[in-house]
Every structure is written in structure tokens, then in C-alpha cells.
């Protein structure tokens, strides 16, 4: 574990922050826009407004988490969130 060079660890965490964070905020926005009980046009806006808060939290998480693997947790979390957000598209794709 400690043999991993520093630059690689920083790169991994930065990647987790940038990509994992984007995937997480994208997916949670999609999920919110789908489940909010509002008119679609309003739901999209209300769901997108907090996206940057999610992104910021994911960035902090990526650098704060104890081990390098857990830093990528937001990316993993993005998968179920995206499934909720895009379930009609997912069903159509399966059919």
C-alpha cells in the first residue's frame, strides 16, 4: 500500500473527485428530476440547482476518505441513482 507513489495516489483521488464527482452529481440530478412531484420543466430546474452541492461534497469525499478505493464511492453510488433517473430508457433498452 505504502509503495504506491505519491503522484499516483494524487492522480487517483483527483480522478475520483473530477469523474466520480461528475457522475455522482449527474446521476443524482437525473434521479431527482425523475422523482420530484413537480411539472417536468420545474422538476428539471429544482433537481439541477443542488447538483453543485453534490459535486462539492463528492470532491471533499474523494480527498477525505481513509483509503483510496473508498474515494471512488460516489462513482459507485451514481449507478443506482442513474438507474432511477433513466429507468424508462433502461427498460426500453432491455426490451
Amino acid at each position, binding site marked *: 500500500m505504502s509503495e504506491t507513489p505519491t503522484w499516483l495516489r494524487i492522480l487517483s483521488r483527483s480522478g475520483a473527485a473530477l469523474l466520480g464527482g461528475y457522475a455522482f*452529481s*449527474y446521476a443524482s440530478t*437525473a434521479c*431527482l428530476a425523475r422523482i420530484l412531484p413537480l411539472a*417536468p*420543466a*420545474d422538476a*428539471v430546474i429544482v433537481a439541477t440547482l443542488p447538483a453543485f452541492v453534490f459535486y462539492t461534497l463528492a470532491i471533499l469525499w474523494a480527498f*477525505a476518505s481513509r483509503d483510496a478505493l473508498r474515494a471512488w464511492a460516489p462513482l459507485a453510488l451514481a449507478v443506482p441513482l442513474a438507474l432511477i*433517473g433513466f429507468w424508462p430508457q433502461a427498460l426500453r433498452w432491455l426490451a
Partner: protein
Amino acid sequence: MKNTFTQSMAWLHTWAGLIFGWLLFAIFVTGTLAVFDKELNHWMQPEIPASTVSQADAAKRAISYLQQHQANAGNWGISLPTERSPGLSVSTGDRRHGVVVPLDPNSGEPLAVRDSVGGNFFFRFHFTLDLPRNWGIFVVGALALVMLAGLITGIVIHKKIFKEFFTFRPDKGQRSWLDFHNASAVLLLPFHLMITYTGLVIFMMIYIPAGVDAVFEGDSRAYFQAQGNARVEQPRRLAKTPAELVELAPLLAEAEARLGPIGSIGIRNPNTAAALIEVRPVLGNRIALTKGNAMVFDGVSGKLLSDVPELRPAPLTQRVMAGLHFAQFGGYPMRWLYFICGLISCAMIASGLVLFCVKRGRKYAAADSRADAAARRWYRVAEVCNVGFISGLMVACVGLLWASRLLPAELAQREAWEVRAFFGLWLLALLHAGVRPAKQAWVEQLALCAVLCGGLGVLGIFAGGVDHLRLGVEVTGLVLGIGLALAAWRVACPKPVVVKPRAARTMEAKA
């Protein structure tokens, strides 16, 4: 990254702050200047006269010019004189690529006005860094996100956030820089958070189109239609039937009573039965950003066809956030408040960058230091970039104002040359910082910047076109110049407290 949460956050704050702070400083400086974009536009084009002509008269003159010279154009645009921008201009063609002709509002004759990027350059640079538009928006968005993360990590690592609310210990080297960085950050924390977050909200549908992708299948046109942004259209065959254009003055009065001060008029298919007149308010009659709002009148009968929409709560929220960022509401007092808050944000970022070097300076400055050569080289890079990106950028900004007045008025591609002057000066400042010792580089660039700022008034006298708006720019320049001169003087002869590293350390232990 590190052992404890606070340590990880401190690491992130330090390094993200250093690497992205240079560009963030540029974004904040140009954003602060863009608060007065119209005033700077006016200053940079001294041929535009001050006028007291009413908007109705100005509109009449613009129409008679267009009737004479552009009677068959498909689109007319008229930009009316307003409080902040006394110029009158007419345009034909579409909005982005139209041909603009400035007119004298007093006579209605075309004016020979020099081409200038104007204060609009700062506005555009603020959200694109002068990159191709879409790239720039994403780069600036990523930087804004880093800024948000920087603010949050800053709160986490600043342990005594309430106890040291107003602490400032001047003349104590590193401690003073830290105090200043903390004080400017904490006192204006709501502003820093607000301006960064609302900046992201403006382009949120570009950054995170997830909602449109999920609910509208990625069809952004369907999304805009669901927002009720339909455009009024007249039957196309009517555009072939000639018809006389209605008198504008009553329409302007009606729109002004409904919307507040008017900024511009657009006329589609003028002189035909399909003529449509769009009257747009100046931005800032209300907090919500009203960009794109217009009252649309029939161009022949003068009947109101479409009013500005009443916004539902969700879009209104987004518009208000965008409006809070654009700072067009509340008139000049609000503008000054944003300007001063913006200056403090800039100072906060700059002091953080300087603090990075001050903190490590002692280790590398001593000739006998044990620091290895590579680390020392990286430290030097940070030092050079600090000078070049802080004082160098300021020199480039004020240099753009000088270029707008000094470049020959009839120069071909004049706007491109102004931009070249801006980036050329910036590059020169970076090179200068690279060849001079850090302290001298700071002093020389800050002094140069002070002289250039203070000298705007002198330039104004010689290059002509004095009126109260331009005088405002010049006086502000003078005040900023004095501030910069003081800064240069402080760097040049600091109070001799921190003489030796050892002395400094005991001072800190006592503090």
C-alpha cells in the same frame, strides 16, 4: 489523503488553492471589472458624446436613419441611450453577427466611433477566459467548483472561525498574511459562497444536463417549450405585403410604464404587414435576470401581441440566482457594493497565494538551506506565477484601457490588437517576474500598475471625451492606483520586524 479529516482538507485547500488560484484570481478580477462593463465601454470609445436626448427622440432618429439606409433589411435593432451607456446605435442582421452603426443621438447622423472590445472584454473573459465559448464555459465552471471546494475546506481548517472573527495582527509577516486571508474570507463568506454558486447556476443546464436528458430524453427544444418560451410569429406571406410602420413613441411609453427603463428595440420584417416590434427592458429593473424578455407589439397596428411572461416559482428561482450574480439590479449603490465585495474576494485569493510562498519562503530563501534543488525550483515557479498572475494580470487589465485610447483609431482589426495588447502585457509581466528577484518584481509591477491606473485621468484629458461617466472611471482608477502604490511601497520597504528567521519564530511563539 492525510491522517485526519482536517489535515486532508488543509492539504486540498493548499494545493488546489495554489494551482487553480492563479486563474481564479483572473476570473474574479475581470468579474469585478465587469460590474462596470458599460461604463468602461463608454470610456474606451471617447467619440460617443454625452447626450440628454429622450429615448423617444433617439428612437425616432434611429428609425429615420434605418428608413433611409436599410429600408429593406429583414431585422432592425436599436440600442437606446440609457443612464449607463449614453450611446445610440442601430444594427441590421441577426443579433450576434449583425452590422452595428453608432449614431449621434443629438443629430441622428452616423458617428465615426473607434472599434473597441470595451468593458465587454472583461465580461467575456470572466466566463470564458477568452477560450472558444463552450470550452471556456466548462473551464471556468470547473474552476468555480474548485472555488466552492476551497471555501468549504477553508471553513473546515479554520478552527477558531468565530473567536478570530476580527483578528488582524499587522506587521507580523506570515501571521499577518494569514490573518488577512482569514478575515477577508470569513467576513465576506456569504458573498464568496453566493457569487460562486450563482455563477455555476447561470450555466447549470450546460454543465449538468441530466434533468433534460432523463425527463425530456435530451431534447432541449422540448424542455424550452415546456418552459413556455414560445416566440411570436406572424404568417410568412404577410412579410411580402408592404405596410407602414407604427409610431414608436406611444409603444415605448407603454412598455416603460410596464417594465421600467427600456434598453433596446428590435423590429422584425420592418415596413411589411408582418412587422413585429420587440421592446426590451434594460437588465436590472428587477432582481431576476430578465435577459431575453420583451414586450412584442404588432408593427402596423401597435397592438400588444405578447407580454413578458410571469415566471413560475422554479424558473423564477433560477432567474433570481442568475440576477444575483449579474448584479444589474439596485442601481449604482448596489453596483458599488458588488465592486467592493469583488475587490475583497480578489484580495482574499491573492493573499492566499502570497501566503503559500511566504510560509515556505524562509525554508528556501536562506542560501545555506538544505532544501533540495528540485523543491527550490518548484518554489521559484510558484513565486514567479504569483507575481505574473496577480500583479501581471492587473497590469494587463489596465493596459487594455490604455490600448483602447492609444492604438490608432483607424487601425484595421483594432479589437484584435487590443486583445493582443492585453495578453502581450500579461506575458511580458510573467517574463519580467521570471528574470527579476521576487521582491523587485512585485514592487515594479505594482508600481507600474499604480501609475497606469492613476494615469487614466491624464490620458482622458489628452485623448478627449470628458463627461461624468468617464470621469467616474478615471477617479476610480486614481483611487485604485493610490491603493496599488501603497501596496508597492509596503513591499519595497516593509516594517523591519521579521529580520532573522529565528527572531520571527520567537515572535510567533509569543503571538
